[in-house]
C-alpha cells in the first residue's frame, strides 16, 4: 500500500525493455539458461524413479513393462540429453562451492579447485556405492 511515491510528480521509473530472448545474445547468458534448465532434468530423473517404485509395488509384470518402456529409442534419446544436463548440474554445483565458502589457510585463500575436488571424490564414491548395491548378486 505504502510503496506509492509520496508526491504526484514522482518521475516514472526508467526500465530498459528486455527481449524475451535476451539469453541468446551471448554464450555466458545461454550457459546460464542451460544451467537453470538442468532442474528439468533433475525433475525428470525423479519421475523415472517414481515410475520404477510404482512398478516394483505393482509386481513383476509392471516391472517388465517398465524396463521395456525404458528401452524405446525415444526414451533412450531423451535420457542421453537428460544425463548431459545432470552432469552440467553436478559440475556447476560443485564448482560453486568454493565461491560460496572461500576457505582460508594461514591467511591465504585455498585455490578453488582444491575446495571443489572433495566434492568430486565424494560423488564418485557415492555413485560407486549405489551402483554396487543395485548390481550385486545376493
Amino acid at each position: 500500500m505504502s510503496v506509492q511515491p509520496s508526491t504526484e510528480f514522482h518521475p516514472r521509473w526508467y526500465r530498459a525493455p528486455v527481449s524475451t530472448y535476451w539469453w541468446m545474445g551471448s554464450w555466458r547468458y545461454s550457459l546460464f539458461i542451460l544451467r537453470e534448465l538442468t532442474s528439468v532434468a533433475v525433475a525428470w530423473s525423479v519421475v523415472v524413479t517414481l515410475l520404477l517404485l510404482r512398478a516394483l509395488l505393482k509386481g513383476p509384470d509392471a516391472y517388465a513393462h517398465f524396463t521395456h518402456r525404458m528401452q524405446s529409442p525415444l526414451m533412450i534419446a531423451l535420457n542421453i540429453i537428460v544425463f548431459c544436463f545432470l552432469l552440467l548440474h553436478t559440475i556447476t554445483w560443485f564448482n560453486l562451492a568454493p565461491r560460496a565458502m572461500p576457505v582460508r589457510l594461514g591467511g591465504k585463500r585455498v585455490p578453488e579447485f582444491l575446495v571443489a575436488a572433495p566434492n568430486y571424490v565424494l560423488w564418485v564414491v557415492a555413485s560407486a556405492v549405489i551402483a554396487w548395491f543395485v548390481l550385486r548378486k545376493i
Partner: protein
Amino acid sequence: MSKPSNEGFFWLLFSAGGVVAAMFIPVHLFLFGLAFPLGWLPQPSYEHLLALARSPLARIYLFVLCALPLFHWAHRFRFTLYDGLQVKHLNEVIFILCYGGALLGTLLSGYLLLRI
C-alpha cells in the same frame, strides 16, 4: 512483492536439493535410463530390487532422493520462468504449480515407499 519472509526457507530446500541432485541423481539415471536399457550392464531382477527398496535405510534414502530434488526443481524452474520468459504477471500461478508439483511428487514417493 510484499512477502519476503519465506524465501530463505525455500532457498534452503533448493540448496539441499541441489546437493542431493548433484551427488546421487546422475548414477540413478545412468543405471536405469542408459546402462540397463542399452544392455551395458545386466538388468537387476525384480526380486532383488524389491528387497533392496524394502530395507528401511533404502526407503529413507529414496524418499530424500525424490523429495529434496523436487523442491530444488520447483525453486530453480520458478526463477527460470520468471527470468527467462519474463512472465512476471503469472508469478503466483507459477509458484503454486511448481511447489504444488513438488509437494505432490513428495507425497507420492512417501506413499509408494510406505506400501512397497
